[in-house]
Structure formats: C-alpha cells, structure tokens
C-alpha cells in the first residue's frame, strides 16, 4: 500500500476548511473591521509615543501636574466605562431581537458618551482660558492631538450610534443592520481601551512628573 492510499484528504482537518465554502459574511465583516480597529490602535500608538517623548517639553508653560484635575478624569473614565457596559447590554438586546431593550441601552450609551464629551470639552475650554493652548508648548500640542483625537473618535461613534438606531427603526434587525451594529460595538469597546491608555499615561502618570 502506498502512502497516498493511506492518506485520506477529506479527513485532513487542515484541508477541509475549503469544503465548507467561504466563511459567513458576518465573520468576514467582523474580521475586516477588527483589522481596521487594530490599524487605528497603531495610529494611536504613534500619537502616544509622540506624547511620551514631548511630555516634559513644556517650554516654560504649564505642566500636566498644574493643569489636570483628577476628579474630572475619574468622571470621564466612569462615563466611558459605563457606556462600554451599556453597549454590551445593547448587543444582548440585539441578540434577543428585543427592540425596547436595544433602544434603552443605546440611549444610555449615547447619553454617557455625550456626558464624557461635555466634561472633556469643558476641560479643554478651561485650559484654553488659562492660556494652555496647543501652540503654547510641544507638550500641549501633543496633549491636544492625543486626547482630541480620541474625543473625535467618540464624536464619530455617537453619530454612528444615532444612525444605527435610525436604521433599526426603519429597517429592523436585518442582516446588514446586524453586521453594522456588531462593528459599532467593537468600535465603542475599542475606544474605551484607548481611553484606559490615555487616563494612565496622560493624566495619572503625567500628573506625577
């Protein structure tokens, strides 16, 4: 008996993936969006590195220790963390095809995101009022780039969430809407992961030195 006769190609677990045909579209879309999120995180890592290099380049201007307010950061962190949780609950509501639960969780997620942005914008306004504008020092340029870029992502996330809810209202839980909702939940959770890096590197470690 030859080796070829002993080898059963159909039973080979490494080869039988093609037998199932292409992966379902939900898997492909989620994977593609995951790749996009990772590239977004790579972009943020470059901005983080810039901030870390320039954190002490205050050019005689105010430093992080003088500008940052820990309570404010704690409120922002709480808002974003809770909104990530309610976004998870929204995913469960979608899984159950339960419209009311989905709308309620989405509304809470949206409100917490708006609260986060409001606190962040009032912080920016307060800094600008004290002369701590992006052009004051390299440290402040890096600060506004990093934290502002995250804030922009949150803003776009809120717009996306509003559009998705409008789609659930008009189109219902059809396949395309479900895929988009899944991508949104990934996006929203990823923003919270980036915020963990920001409150640690910028606010907690930054305020110490």
């Amino acid at each position, binding site marked *: 008996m030859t080796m070829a006769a002993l080898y059963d190609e159909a039973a080979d677990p490494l080869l039988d993936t093609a037998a199932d045909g292409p992966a379902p579209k*939900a898997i492909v879309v989620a*994977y593609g969006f995951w790749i996009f999120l990772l590239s977004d995180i790579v972009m943020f890592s470059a901005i983080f*590195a810039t901030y870390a290099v320039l954190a002490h380049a205050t050019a005689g201007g105010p430093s992080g220790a003088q500008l940052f307010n820990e309570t404010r950061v704690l409120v922002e962190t709480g808002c974003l*963390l809770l909104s990530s949780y309610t976004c998870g609950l929204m995913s469960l509501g979608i899984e159950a095809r339960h419209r009311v639960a989905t709308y309620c969780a989405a509304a809470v997620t949206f409100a917490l995101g708006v609260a986060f942005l409001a606190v962040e914008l009032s912080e920016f306004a307060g800094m600008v009022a004290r002369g701590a504008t992006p052009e004051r020092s390299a440290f402040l340029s890096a600060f506004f780039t990093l934290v502002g870029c995250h804030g922009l992502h949150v803003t776009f996330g809120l717009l996306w969430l509003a559009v998705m809810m409008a789609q659930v209202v008009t189109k219902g839980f059809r396949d395309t809407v*479900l895929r988009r909702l899944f991508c949104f939940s990934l996006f929203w959770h990823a923003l919270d*992961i980036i915020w963990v890096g920001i409150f*640690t590197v910028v606010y*907690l470690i930054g305020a*110490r030195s």
Partner: protein
Amino acid sequence: MSAQTRGNSSDSVQGVNRKALRFGFFVYTVGLLLAIILTATSFWAASTPLLWAPGVSLGLAVLAVAQMGVHLVFFIHITTGPDNTNNVLALAFGLMVVTLVVAGSLWIMANLNANMMPSTDLMNLHTQY
C-alpha cells in the same frame, strides 16, 4: 468576538436562548466589576502617599495593561477558541507594531536627547556669557 452567534441572520427570534443571554449578561457584568476594581486601584495608587513613588508609574502601566486585557476578553470577546484564531493572530501582529512604535520612539528620542545635551549646554554658555 462571537460574530457567529451575533451576526447570523434573524433566524431564531422566538427560539432565543435565554441561557446564552443570561450568560452574556454575566460576562459583561464581571468585566465591568473587574474594570472598576482596576480603575479604582489605578486612581488610588496615583494619589496615595503610601507607595514608593518611583515604582508607581510602572505599577500604573501594569494596571492599564491588565484592564485592557479585561476589556478585550469580557467586552470584545477575544477568546482562545478555534473561531477566534484569526482575530488573535491579527491582535498579536497589532501589538507587535504598537510595541515597536512606542518602545522604538522612546528609545531613539531619549538617545538623541542625551547626545544633544552638550551642544545645548554650549549654546546656553554662549547666550549667558
């Protein structure tokens, strides 16, 4: 990322698995509690005078990485299951690029900064005297 269960068509609307939903709720809630504990520890460590100050920054970094891990597992549902292999591989590649960018930038810029010091000192001498 359980796209399989979540992204599938509106198949079993009435046959929704209550048990799976309850387990999903449990997973999100455990993730939230862990994240709250880690966040609270971070803010406490940053403000307390009880800890050895030079070590706090490293401790904060460790807490942040731990919390990112909690978010990945409990919120984004990255698992070690066979349906997640591609996602984990992509994540591993992303982490490699992030590490190279951050560590490489800090290393090179600190090195350049150290090497530039003498000439800036000279500049200061020129301007001062």
